[in-house]
Protein backbone atom coordinates (compact mmCIF):
# COMPACT_ATOMS: atom_id res chain seq x y z
CA UNK A 1 0.00 0.00 0.00
CA UNK A 2 1.22 3.47 -0.78
CA UNK A 3 0.89 6.07 1.94
CA UNK A 4 1.08 9.75 1.07
CA UNK A 5 1.14 12.65 3.49
CA UNK A 6 0.78 16.00 1.84
CA UNK A 7 1.48 19.19 3.77
CA UNK A 8 0.13 17.63 6.97
CA UNK A 9 -0.14 19.88 9.99
CA UNK A 10 -1.28 18.60 13.40
CA UNK A 11 -1.26 21.00 16.32
CA UNK A 12 2.05 22.66 17.13
CA UNK A 13 4.18 19.54 16.72
CA UNK A 14 3.80 18.62 13.05
CA UNK A 15 3.84 21.37 10.48
CA UNK A 16 3.61 20.95 6.71
CA UNK A 17 4.89 17.38 6.58
CA UNK A 18 4.95 15.80 3.12
CA UNK A 19 6.20 12.30 2.51
CA UNK A 20 5.43 9.34 0.26
CA UNK A 21 5.95 5.79 1.50
CA UNK A 22 5.76 3.06 -1.11
CA UNK A 23 4.91 -0.65 -1.05
CA UNK A 24 7.22 -2.65 1.19
CA UNK A 25 9.08 0.42 2.33
CA UNK A 26 10.07 0.75 5.97
CA UNK A 27 10.23 4.23 7.39
CA UNK A 28 11.27 5.35 10.86
CA UNK A 29 10.08 8.48 12.61
CA UNK A 30 12.00 10.62 15.05
CA UNK A 31 11.30 13.84 16.90
CA UNK A 32 8.35 15.43 18.69
CA UNK A 33 4.89 14.26 17.64
CA UNK A 34 5.69 10.68 16.57
CA UNK A 35 2.73 9.10 18.31
CA UNK A 36 0.45 11.90 17.14
CA UNK A 37 1.46 11.30 13.55
CA UNK A 38 0.93 7.54 13.77
CA UNK A 39 -2.49 8.05 15.38
CA UNK A 40 -3.41 10.38 12.54
CA UNK A 41 -2.31 7.82 9.93
CA UNK A 42 -4.63 5.20 11.41
CA UNK A 43 -7.39 7.79 11.62
CA UNK A 44 -7.70 7.92 15.41
CA UNK A 45 -7.24 11.68 15.37
CA UNK A 46 -7.85 14.27 12.69
CA UNK A 47 -5.33 16.56 11.04
CA UNK A 48 -5.55 20.34 10.97
CA UNK A 49 -4.25 20.93 7.45
CA UNK A 50 -3.17 18.97 4.40
CA UNK A 51 -4.28 15.44 3.61
CA UNK A 52 -3.33 11.81 4.03
CA UNK A 53 -4.06 9.34 1.25
CA UNK A 54 -3.66 5.61 0.92
CA UNK A 55 -3.32 4.11 -2.54
CA UNK A 56 -4.55 7.43 -3.88
CA UNK A 57 -7.71 7.47 -1.78
CA UNK A 58 -8.17 10.21 0.78
CA UNK A 59 -8.13 9.20 4.45
CA UNK A 60 -11.13 10.82 6.12
CA UNK A 61 -13.11 9.99 9.27
CA UNK A 62 -15.57 8.23 6.95
CA UNK A 63 -13.00 6.23 4.98
CA UNK A 64 -10.72 5.42 7.95
CA UNK A 65 -12.65 2.29 9.08
CA UNK A 66 -12.27 0.87 5.56
CA UNK A 67 -8.52 1.50 5.44
CA UNK A 68 -8.01 0.13 8.93
CA UNK A 69 -9.02 -3.28 7.65
CA UNK A 70 -5.70 -3.30 5.82
CA UNK A 71 -3.65 -1.83 8.65
CA UNK A 72 -2.13 -3.28 11.78
CA UNK A 73 -1.37 -0.91 14.61
CA UNK A 74 0.96 -1.33 17.56
CA UNK A 75 0.26 1.37 20.17
CA UNK A 76 2.75 3.07 22.45
CA UNK A 77 0.96 1.73 25.49
CA UNK A 78 -2.02 -0.50 26.11
CA UNK A 79 -3.85 -1.16 29.34
CA UNK A 80 -6.51 -3.82 29.70
CA UNK A 81 -9.52 -4.09 31.99
CA UNK A 82 -9.58 -6.98 34.46
CA UNK A 83 -10.43 -10.30 32.89
CA UNK A 84 -9.72 -9.31 29.28
CA UNK A 85 -7.59 -12.16 27.97
CA UNK A 86 -7.69 -11.76 24.19
CA UNK A 87 -4.56 -9.62 24.22
CA UNK A 88 -1.46 -11.31 25.56
CA UNK A 89 -3.06 -14.77 25.62
CA UNK A 90 -4.16 -14.25 29.22
CA UNK A 91 -0.62 -13.50 30.43
CA UNK A 92 -0.69 -9.72 29.93
CA UNK A 93 -0.55 -8.87 33.64
CA UNK A 94 2.57 -10.95 34.18
CA UNK A 95 4.40 -9.96 30.99
CA UNK A 96 7.29 -7.49 30.96
CA UNK A 97 7.04 -4.33 28.86
CA UNK A 98 9.36 -5.92 26.26
CA UNK A 99 7.27 -9.11 26.11
CA UNK A 100 4.10 -7.08 25.69
CA UNK A 101 5.57 -5.06 22.85
CA UNK A 102 6.88 -8.16 21.11
CA UNK A 103 3.50 -9.86 21.51
CA UNK A 104 1.70 -6.88 19.96
CA UNK A 105 4.21 -6.60 17.13
CA UNK A 106 4.15 -10.33 16.39
CA UNK A 107 0.35 -10.28 16.39
CA UNK A 108 0.28 -7.24 14.10
CA UNK A 109 2.73 -8.78 11.63
CA UNK A 110 0.99 -12.14 11.85
CA UNK A 111 -2.32 -10.54 10.91
CA UNK A 112 -1.06 -10.45 7.32
CA UNK A 113 -2.18 -6.87 6.75
CA UNK A 114 -0.55 -4.77 4.09
CA UNK A 115 0.44 -1.83 6.26
CA UNK A 116 2.00 -1.79 9.71
CA UNK A 117 1.93 1.31 11.88
CA UNK A 118 4.10 0.55 14.90
CA UNK A 119 4.71 2.98 17.70
CA UNK A 120 7.50 2.39 20.21
CA UNK A 121 6.81 1.72 23.89
CA UNK A 122 7.28 4.57 26.33
CA UNK A 123 10.08 2.65 28.06
CA UNK A 124 13.20 1.84 26.00
CA UNK A 125 13.41 -1.77 24.84
CA UNK A 126 16.21 -4.10 25.88
CA UNK A 127 18.96 -4.87 23.40
CA UNK A 128 17.74 -8.39 22.61
CA UNK A 129 14.19 -7.18 22.12
CA UNK A 130 15.40 -4.42 19.81
CA UNK A 131 17.17 -7.01 17.68
CA UNK A 132 14.06 -9.18 17.59
CA UNK A 133 11.92 -6.16 16.66
CA UNK A 134 14.29 -5.25 13.84
CA UNK A 135 14.27 -8.84 12.59
CA UNK A 136 10.47 -8.99 12.58
CA UNK A 137 10.18 -5.62 10.84
CA UNK A 138 12.75 -6.63 8.25
CA UNK A 139 10.88 -9.86 7.51
CA UNK A 140 7.59 -8.03 7.18
CA UNK A 141 9.09 -5.43 4.86
CA UNK A 142 10.56 -8.29 2.82
CA UNK A 143 7.03 -9.62 2.31
CA UNK A 144 5.95 -6.24 0.94
CA UNK A 145 4.34 -4.80 4.06
CA UNK A 146 4.51 -1.00 4.14
CA UNK A 147 5.86 -0.04 7.57
CA UNK A 148 5.86 3.23 9.45
CA UNK A 149 7.45 2.89 12.85
CA UNK A 150 9.11 4.77 15.64
CA UNK A 151 12.58 3.32 15.43
CA UNK A 152 15.84 5.27 15.43
CA UNK A 153 17.78 2.19 14.26
CA UNK A 154 16.34 2.60 10.79
CA UNK A 155 19.00 4.73 9.21
CA UNK A 156 18.01 4.92 5.55
CA UNK A 157 14.44 6.21 5.63
CA UNK A 158 13.90 8.52 8.56
CA UNK A 159 11.27 11.20 8.95
CA UNK A 160 12.55 13.86 11.30
CA UNK A 161 9.68 15.77 12.84
Amino acid at each position, binding site marked *: MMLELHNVTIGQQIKGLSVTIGDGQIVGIQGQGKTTLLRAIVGLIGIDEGHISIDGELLTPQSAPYFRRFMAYVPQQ*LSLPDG*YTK*VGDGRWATMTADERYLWLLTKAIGSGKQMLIADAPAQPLGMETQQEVDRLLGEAAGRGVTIVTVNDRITQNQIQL
Partner: protein
Amino acid sequence: MKTFYIIVVLAVLAWKGYYAWGRGIRTYRNDRQQHDSLREYLLANGATARQSVWPFWRHALQRAFLPMLSQWRLWLILLLLGLLIWWID
Protein backbone atom coordinates in the same frame (compact mmCIF):
# COMPACT_ATOMS: atom_id res chain seq x y z
CA MET B 1 -49.81 -12.69 52.97
CA LYS B 2 -49.18 -13.63 49.33
CA THR B 3 -49.41 -10.02 48.19
CA PHE B 4 -47.07 -8.90 50.95
CA TYR B 5 -44.57 -11.59 50.02
CA ILE B 6 -44.69 -10.65 46.35
CA ILE B 7 -44.20 -6.98 47.17
CA VAL B 8 -41.21 -7.79 49.36
CA VAL B 9 -39.61 -10.05 46.72
CA LEU B 10 -40.24 -7.50 43.96
CA ALA B 11 -38.80 -4.73 46.11
CA VAL B 12 -35.68 -6.79 46.78
CA LEU B 13 -35.35 -7.62 43.09
CA ALA B 14 -35.81 -3.98 42.09
CA TRP B 15 -33.21 -2.88 44.61
CA LYS B 16 -30.77 -5.57 43.49
CA GLY B 17 -31.35 -4.68 39.83
CA TYR B 18 -30.88 -0.98 40.48
CA TYR B 19 -27.71 -1.64 42.46
CA ALA B 20 -26.36 -4.01 39.79
CA TRP B 21 -27.12 -1.54 37.00
CA GLY B 22 -25.31 1.22 38.90
CA ARG B 23 -22.32 -1.05 39.46
CA GLY B 24 -22.27 -1.88 35.74
CA ILE B 25 -22.38 1.75 34.68
CA ARG B 26 -19.61 2.67 37.10
CA THR B 27 -17.47 -0.21 35.81
CA TYR B 28 -18.04 0.84 32.18
CA ARG B 29 -17.20 4.47 32.93
CA ASN B 30 -14.06 3.61 34.90
CA ASP B 31 -12.85 1.14 32.27
CA ARG B 32 -13.35 3.65 29.48
CA GLN B 33 -11.40 6.25 31.44
CA GLN B 34 -8.55 3.98 32.45
CA HIS B 35 -8.30 1.58 29.51
CA ASP B 36 -9.41 3.60 26.51
CA SER B 37 -6.17 2.55 24.82
CA LEU B 38 -7.80 -0.86 24.33
CA ARG B 39 -10.71 0.69 22.41
CA GLU B 40 -8.25 2.58 20.22
CA TYR B 41 -6.12 -0.52 19.73
CA LEU B 42 -9.10 -2.57 18.58
CA LEU B 43 -10.42 0.25 16.42
CA ALA B 44 -7.04 0.85 14.79
CA ASN B 45 -6.73 -2.84 13.99
CA GLY B 46 -9.95 -3.00 12.04
CA ALA B 47 -12.70 -3.46 14.62
CA THR B 48 -15.93 -1.54 14.17
CA ALA B 49 -16.89 1.12 16.71
CA ARG B 50 -19.33 -1.33 18.31
CA GLN B 51 -16.77 -4.15 18.45
CA SER B 52 -14.20 -1.81 19.99
CA VAL B 53 -16.40 -1.07 23.04
CA TRP B 54 -17.73 -4.62 23.46
CA PRO B 55 -14.98 -5.66 25.96
CA PHE B 56 -16.07 -2.77 28.18
CA TRP B 57 -19.75 -3.72 27.95
CA ARG B 58 -18.94 -7.34 28.69
CA HIS B 59 -16.85 -6.44 31.72
CA ALA B 60 -19.57 -4.08 32.97
CA LEU B 61 -22.25 -6.76 32.59
CA GLN B 62 -20.07 -9.30 34.36
CA ARG B 63 -19.40 -6.92 37.23
CA ALA B 64 -23.06 -6.00 37.41
CA PHE B 65 -24.76 -9.37 37.31
CA LEU B 66 -22.29 -12.10 38.24
CA PRO B 67 -22.48 -11.25 41.96
CA MET B 68 -26.27 -11.61 41.69
CA LEU B 69 -25.99 -14.95 39.92
CA SER B 70 -23.52 -16.14 42.53
CA GLN B 71 -26.25 -15.62 45.12
CA TRP B 72 -28.52 -18.13 43.33
CA ARG B 73 -28.95 -20.18 46.51
CA LEU B 74 -30.61 -17.23 48.19
CA TRP B 75 -33.00 -16.76 45.24
CA LEU B 76 -33.77 -20.48 45.22
CA ILE B 77 -34.66 -20.38 48.91
CA LEU B 78 -36.87 -17.31 48.35
CA LEU B 79 -38.61 -19.07 45.47
CA LEU B 80 -39.19 -22.24 47.49
CA LEU B 81 -40.44 -20.15 50.39
CA GLY B 82 -42.85 -18.38 48.05
CA LEU B 83 -44.13 -21.68 46.68
CA LEU B 84 -44.54 -23.01 50.23
CA ILE B 85 -46.52 -19.95 51.30
CA TRP B 86 -48.63 -20.25 48.14
CA TRP B 87 -49.34 -23.92 48.94
CA ILE B 88 -50.18 -23.30 52.62
CA ASP B 89 -52.40 -20.37 51.72
